[in-house]
């Protein structure tokens, strides 16, 4: 099991960053769910719980989600529901259970950049930026593709837009890791199609989305589905083969588009 020699509840982000940079054995504590399963012996565990970063707030043009916000708080947030529909509740309901999601944090989930992450898939279908202590503000896709330097993820900022969303996933059992996950959104006539757990992490099928109009006919949808599987890479792991994932991607993306058009 993992170990900690010291525990520090920090008073500021400056203090947290200074501690993080002091040693490679110091670590930011998210909800601990992933970290706990490892065997690493850390020196200092840095707890951001006292910094008020466990909140979802609203500015004139964005919804800001602090890194310590538990996933359960996101899925039950009336504010997130008002702006993005049931996207987060649909995306998170398969993540283990309520008690787990009362602990797992937004920061730990995004920072880990897991391929299977339903959290990242859902955020990818929105206009999401990530605020980091050192690297500043970057788009979510930039964050996912940049060199993994040690930093602190402070919050996710989602642009407020009149957006329709839908989340689809296939799991072998209700709370297993996803075999594939899809988040689709439509905002001002522009579609976004995010496909995650391919098994690599979520990415947008941009060319495919550009083929769609606000009210696409069958022919356009079929062309879009073909484009999704040509544009994105699909791999094989213990959960599924790449061919199966491609078939699944077409089915789930189609369901997502139809749900939004309905």
């Amino acid at each position: 099991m993992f170990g900690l020699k010291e525990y520090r509840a920090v008073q500021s982000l400056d203090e947290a960053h200074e501690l993080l940079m002091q040693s490679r054995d110091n670590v930011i504590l998210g909800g601990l769910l992933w970290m706990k399963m490892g065997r690493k012996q850390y020196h200092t565990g840095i707890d951001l719980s006292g910094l008020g970063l466990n909140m979802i707030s609203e500015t004139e043009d964005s919804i800001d989600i602090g890194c310590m916000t538990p996933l359960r708080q996101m899925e039950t947030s009336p504010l997130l529901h008002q702006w993005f529909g049931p996207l987060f509740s649909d995306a998170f309901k398969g993540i283990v259970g309520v008690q787990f999601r009362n602990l797992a944090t937004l920061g730990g989930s995004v920072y880990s950049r897991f391929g299977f992450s339903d959290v990242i898939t859902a955020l990818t279908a929105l206009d999401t930026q990530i605020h980091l202590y050192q690297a500043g503000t970057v788009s979510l896709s930039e964050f996912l593709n940049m060199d993994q330097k040690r930093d602190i993820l402070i919050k996710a900022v989602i642009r407020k837009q009149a957006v329709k969303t839908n989340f689809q996933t296939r799991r072998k059992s209700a709370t297993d890791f996803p075999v594939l996950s899809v988040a689709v959104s439509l905002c001002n006539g522009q579609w976004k199609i995010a496909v995650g757990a391919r098994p690599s992490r979520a990415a947008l099928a941009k060319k495919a989305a550009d083929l769609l109009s606000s009210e696409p006919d069958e022919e356009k949808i079929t062309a879009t589905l073909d484009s999704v599987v040509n544009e994105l890479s699909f791999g094989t792991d213990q959960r599924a083969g790449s061919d199966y994932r491609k078939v699944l991607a077409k089915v789930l993306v189609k369901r997502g588009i139809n749900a939004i058009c309905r």
Partner: protein
Amino acid sequence: MQITCRINKREFIRDIEPDLLLIDFVRSLGFKSVKRGCDTSNCGLCTVWVDEKPVLSCSVLAARVNHKAVTTLEGLEEEAKEVGWFLATQGAEQCGFCSPGLIMNILAMKAEFKNPTTEDIKQYLAGNLCRCSGYESQLRAIKNYFDLQGVAHENC
């Protein structure tokens, strides 16, 4: 390091190791209803409430409950007895190993939902694994329990 917390309304001040987990902390204080059923945060057996929210005590640092209120099954004896009766009546308690975590989460659901549907119940309790019951008898018991609370639920 030293922490102060309330467990089942009683105050405890203790010196702990920084990486002590809440499950081991509460058990060391005699709250043995809290058990470990897995190593992967998946089974729900270790469920306790921290400030009224159900969490997996196997995945929480004891250091993090400093100045917080923890509730275990021992602190909810009457309510637990009532839920337990419904489970037993439907034959849902077979080996009974999953019951402490399940009952803690049923009571947490009761605090959050006025009238849970079948789907609500299934989703809320998805993180409470049971090796014996096949869940049907548990579901019947939970619906009966909510009926008795005078709380309507969808009958599907």
